[in-house]
């Protein structure tokens, strides 16, 4: 769905979620991308991962910040 058809409160939520990761981590989108690539390089050595579906967020849980990544794997690498 394009932004034209989306409810604006949904757009607001998505934009907030995105900007707060940057605010909380104090990392620019470029540095964030670089970090993702480095993660891919390390984790990809051990797992066959889906590079297009990597998610990275900085969440607040019980009064502290937590970095969460979600990296879907297609399969194991036979080392």
């Amino acid at each position, binding site marked *: 769905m394009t932004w034209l058809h989306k409810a604006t*409160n*949904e757009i607001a*939520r998505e934009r907030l979620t995105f900007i*707060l990761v940057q*605010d909380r981590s104090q990392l620019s989108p470029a540095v964030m991308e670089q970090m993702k690539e480095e993660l891919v390089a390390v984790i990809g050595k051990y797992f066959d991962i889906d590079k297009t579906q990597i998610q990275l967020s900085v*969440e607040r*849980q019980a*009064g502290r910040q937590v970095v969460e990544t979600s990296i879907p794997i297609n399969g194991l690498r036979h080392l």
Partner: protein
Amino acid sequence: MGRVIVVTSGKGGVGKTTTTANVGGALTTLGKKVLLVDMDVGLRNLDLVMGLENRVVYTFMDVLEGRCTAEQAMVKEKHAGGALMLLAASQLHNKQDLDLDKVKEAVAALSTEFDYVFLDSPAGIEHGFEASSAPAEQALIVVTPDVTSVRDADRVIGLLENKGVRNCSLIVNKYDRTLIERKKQLTSDDIVDVLGTELVGVVPEDKAILDATNRGDILVLSQSTPAAAAYLEIACRLEGDETNFSALSTGHSLLSLFWRQK
């Protein structure tokens, strides 16, 4: 020792001062003794919201700098029979003039005489915010359902956590059910999820607030309206009673029905 709570938001104009006055007022209806301290040095407004602007003689700064006692500086709210007191901010000083150690010491001394001390923080994250949060053990974060206010609230919550104020809870203000139904406004669930912080109140958009402020009356002490019910719910929750959020339910809560009949 009473509880010391900072009311803050980062962003200006979201309703910190109105919230401070009404949550404090609501607590007096539950029999609590409450002190409200205006920390917005140079831009004071809590006196005006409470209708006490002509009664302020000394300010909190005068207390800090030893020109008078706290008893001389405190002004009694008109309807709460001495249970609600104001310490006004100085208009003649800058926020930089607030000495953090002196503020902490003075607030600690005052908290022995009240059940609650609320520090109404100025907007921003500079010295005035620092001075307001330094003595606090708990924070009420006032947030309106828009991206700018939520972003600023996130920043403020992060700063408070770094200072060791981990007991933060959200008051979603100016909540508009019509806009929510049209999917044009962030819901309180969205805000709670995004900020990862618990909710203590949802205050609906209510024109009665404007009327009360125009007159210099505290809404919760003068009228029974949906926003007044919401402030009373916040007071109950601060006291440990888990009531529902009437602004979120389609019907009326028992509390708001009770409140209407008064």
